[in-house]
């Protein structure tokens, strides 16, 4: 069973801050959704390789050329905070 402590652990792994009210909602909803999904356990999959990419990926070659597609200014244009060509964050401990 998934309890509130489990939800808090998952939220930390997912780097999500949850209000106590939201945490309780997840503790109620997540087990219900998982219970429905657990029906896949009924399918026998002994020795079956999981499918990750649904169509075949064809290898191709290209020249190993360096291409500058974006400038530092363009890359930094969406930064929430910056100093010069650096991303700025609050002091972290």
């Amino acid at each position, binding site marked *: 069973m998934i309890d509130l402590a489990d939800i808090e652990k998952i939220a930390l792994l997912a780097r999500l801050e949850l209000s106590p009210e939201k945490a309780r909602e997840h503790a109620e909803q997540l087990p219900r*959704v*998982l219970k429905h999904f657990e029906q*896949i*356990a009924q399918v026998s999959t002994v020795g079956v390789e999981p499918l990750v990419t*649904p169509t075949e990926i064809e290898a*191709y070659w290209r020249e190993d050329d360096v291409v500058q597609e974006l400038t530092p200014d363009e890359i930094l244009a969406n930064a929430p905070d910056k100093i010069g060509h650096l991303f700025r964050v609050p002091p972290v401990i």
Partner: protein
Amino acid sequence: MAIIDLSIAELRKKIQQRELSATQLSEAFLNRIKELDPKLNSFITVNERVMDDARELDKRIAAGENVGPLAGLPLAIKDMLCTKGIKTTAASKMLNNFVPPYDSTVVAKLKKAGALVIGKTNLDEFAMGSSNETSFYGSVKNPWNLDCVPGGSSGGSAAAQAARLAVASIGTDTGGSIRQPASFCGIVGIKPTYGRVSRYGIVAYASSLDQAGPMTSTVADAAEMLEVISGHDIHDSTSSQKSVPTFTQSLRKDLKGMKIGLIREYETDAISADVRKTVENAIATAKSLGAEVVEVQVPLTQYAVPIYYLVAASEASSNLARYDGVRYGYRADYQNLSAVELEKFYCKNRGQGFGEEVQRRIMLGTYALSSGYYDAYYNKAGQVRRLLTQEFQSAFEKCDVILSPVSTTAAFKIGERISDPLAMYLNDIFTTSTNLAGLPGMSVPFGFSAQGMPIGIQLTATHFQEEKLFAVASALEAAANISDRRPNVI
């Protein structure tokens, strides 16, 4: 004939022969958006600069330049695809101010073909939803009935297209997000084979499932659009190097020699009477057009929704890890703090920046990938996914195209299913298998519910056989003879 009733081919001819200018066309559609979109909320951003682009194009046409097959056509692009210099939000507070410094490959190809971006359409946040109710920018309304959802997640593109606010639209489809809103809004939508269209520059949700595709007024327009956006891209290693067929040459009026498959396991009491009747009519029509109808079996489709949500949520939890509030995207207010713990910094940015459904799926995916549960959930889902794909391969040995419902019902009322996540997930029982197996799928309008809401038919083919979808869809579209019906809002 009014401009909004003209096909891409007809508009191209008028523009080439200078009966119509790109400027006139963009102005006409901008005016429609201004007049009608306040009722629909289908656009997040309208690109006012489209008039400058149109004038530029008219100059090139006047100079006798070859401007491309979509020259001067204003298109609506789902706000999941990056557009250089035009805000791209994924309908999330997280990307509320994000202006991409580059174009997604789909948009770059459309522009190269001469098309113009008239605006960016609304969607469920990060494409996670089937009703367009999870958008940070508010719900989209269905043009056929403003109390109903347009479907999702490409609900803005579907509503805009149904209301003829653009010549054609682009959506993305991870578990049905092009086909289900196309059905709910009475337009054509195609999710191409996985790898047919480059994913470069499309906000990533579930990378092994996502594909972009056209959402259009007619099957012929979808063929025109798919020809332009398909093909290999060095920026996406999963994009296919297969040659791109001339899809417009696949259109036909009869179905002689075509085998249509019906999936026995799709027979369920959950299908509404209206949808059942529409599917039965489509089967009868296909037979009368010369198709042979056969039954096929894909028993594992009963697990499609669980496999889909485990795979999609797992991939989403990994893909959305990039939103940390450092390089771009939402950052919480730290003005009054002298210092913050690094983990708390991330948790706060993400906790405030992501909406409820996105957080729900990140939680589910994180759990399914976590130590001790990986084998039972993510790995197991991948194994059943392979078996499901093999069942589809066997089914396509017996038929060319599978015909099925898109959804169990026509568009439902806004607010009706949003409070129950599991009920919302079960909307996707007929559409998710297609993405899991990487197959091409299409929704084509074929009927109406008793309440006058559109209902589409889903067609599915095997890998890289979109031509068969266009063949069957064009024949059914011609026979259905409902393309003159327009939503009340227009």
